[in-house]
């Protein structure tokens, strides 16, 4: 079943002209989709359309999730520095009217889910980049979203932290099965995490190719070194290069 869809969507910005589209993209319930493509191809714009944070200039955006059922994680952790990790995570619930005590309890649970049970009372400034990103992830998960949107969530982290977080996201997905759409520059990360990789081209964003990724989710050990993984990554890389050439 489709949980959200972009149909013939175009976005124009007054200053820059066409920023995106026309783009067609359907997201199935519980699906994990990676959007890859060069900078400026409209990946993040597509994500904001799916979140309902932006309206298209033309075309339709269909969104099934109700209010509070969509969560977004940005490239930076985007935490309020004056709040503790727990209060940051509780924020979406409190804004929706959940009593503070209940919200804070659920926030502590969400932090435990991302492996931060000990850090609930820390402030963002006291957390490492990876830990802050986990708090951000916990805040996105605390509302039990049906649609989770990640905008280059691990781009600012080192390789080891990135990989650990990718596995954590997949483990969380296995338990709660939200549909996930994530934007990345990294082909390997896209193939590792997604069940479908959507390759976009620059200027303005069009879908150059859609590559299905075979294999179980979450990924078994040694998935990265399997022949299937390498072949799929190769296919995505070729599609990405072809798209960039066509746009040039």
């Amino acid at each position, binding site marked *: 079943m489709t949980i959200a869809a972009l149909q013939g969507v175009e976005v124009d910005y007054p200053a820059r002209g066409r920023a995106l589209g026309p783009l067609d993209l359907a997201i199935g319930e519980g699906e994990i989709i990676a959007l890859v493509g060069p900078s400026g191809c409209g990946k993040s714009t597509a994500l*904001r359309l799916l*979140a*309902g*944070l932006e309206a298209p200039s033309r075309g339709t955006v269909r969104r099934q999730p109700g*209010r*509070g059922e*969509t*969560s*977004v994680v*940005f490239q*930076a952790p*985007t935490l*309020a*520095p*004056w709040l*503790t990790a727990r209060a940051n995570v509780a*924020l*979406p619930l409190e*804004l*929706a009217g959940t009593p503070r005590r209940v919200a804070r309890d659920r926030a502590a649970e969400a932090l435990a889910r991302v492996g931060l049970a000990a850090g609930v009372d*820390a*402030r*963002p*400034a*006291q957390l490492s980049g990876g830990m802050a990103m986990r708090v951000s992830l916990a805040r996105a998960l605390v509302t039990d979203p049906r649609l989770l949107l990640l905008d280059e969530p691990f781009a600012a982290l080192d390789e080891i932290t990135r990989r650990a977080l990718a596995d954590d996201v997949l483990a969380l997905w296995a338990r709660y099965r939200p549909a996930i759409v994530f934007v990345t520059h990294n082909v390997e990360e896209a193939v590792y995490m997604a069940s479908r990789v959507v390759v976009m081209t620059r200027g303005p964003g069009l879908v150059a190719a859609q590559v299905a990724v075979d294999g179980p989710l979450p990924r078994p050990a040694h998935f990265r070194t399997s022949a299937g993984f390498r072949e799929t990554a190769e296919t995505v890389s070729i599609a990405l290069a072809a798209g960039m050439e066509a746009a040039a």
Partner: protein
Amino acid sequence: MRRLAERLAPVVLVALLLAAWETACRLLAIPAYFLPPPSRIAASLAADAPSLLASAWNTLFMALVALAVASVLAQAVALVVALSPILERAVRPLAVVLQVTPVVAVAPLVVIWAGIDHPERAIVALAAVVAFFPIFSGAVTGLKSADPDLERLFDLYGATRVQRLMRLRLPSATPYLLEGHKVAAGLAVIGAVVAEFVAGSGGAQGLAWRILEAGNRLQTARMFAALVVLGVLGAVLHAGLERLEGAILRLWRGR
């Protein structure tokens, strides 16, 4: 060792300058009414300490009252303005005019309005006028300084205007408000002194009055002594506020 040198450097420089000043005054036989040597100023400082300290407290008190008045007014106006872009456009030019008009030019008018018998009202009003702008400006900037991605999250969560103000914009503005108050406090002292000068001898007891009084009597050493107290007052106030700002910011960020 290096830290010690860094700490001592300003002290040594001041000591050298004072020594040169003292020597020059003695060798060139400069009359004391024209330029008294530091030793004379020190003597005057010691002799007049009680009255100078009372005057310093007077000036400081006026400046602090003015700061409190300016703080309440500036933040209230900034809050109203932050809720409405139209109002901001309307208020901005007035605030700028208020800021660029030299306070000394407005002072005689305010002294008349406050009444000859109430120079302290004029002093507070004038010091508040100068202290208003940095707080207002900091508050307006601060209220608009929230992380745009956090603003987007508040959109996503369907936050109300009040929630956005109380839980995002006001806390985000904290560092800007602190900076604004720090600048404003320094300006409030300057404003108070200027106002004292204009209000003249009509009952004002601040440091400016001491300077005027000593000047009229050609007691140059006492003028210098009052200036020294004024300088120390400003420096102490600045240092105190810097520490307070640091402490509150540490609380705000959690480290």
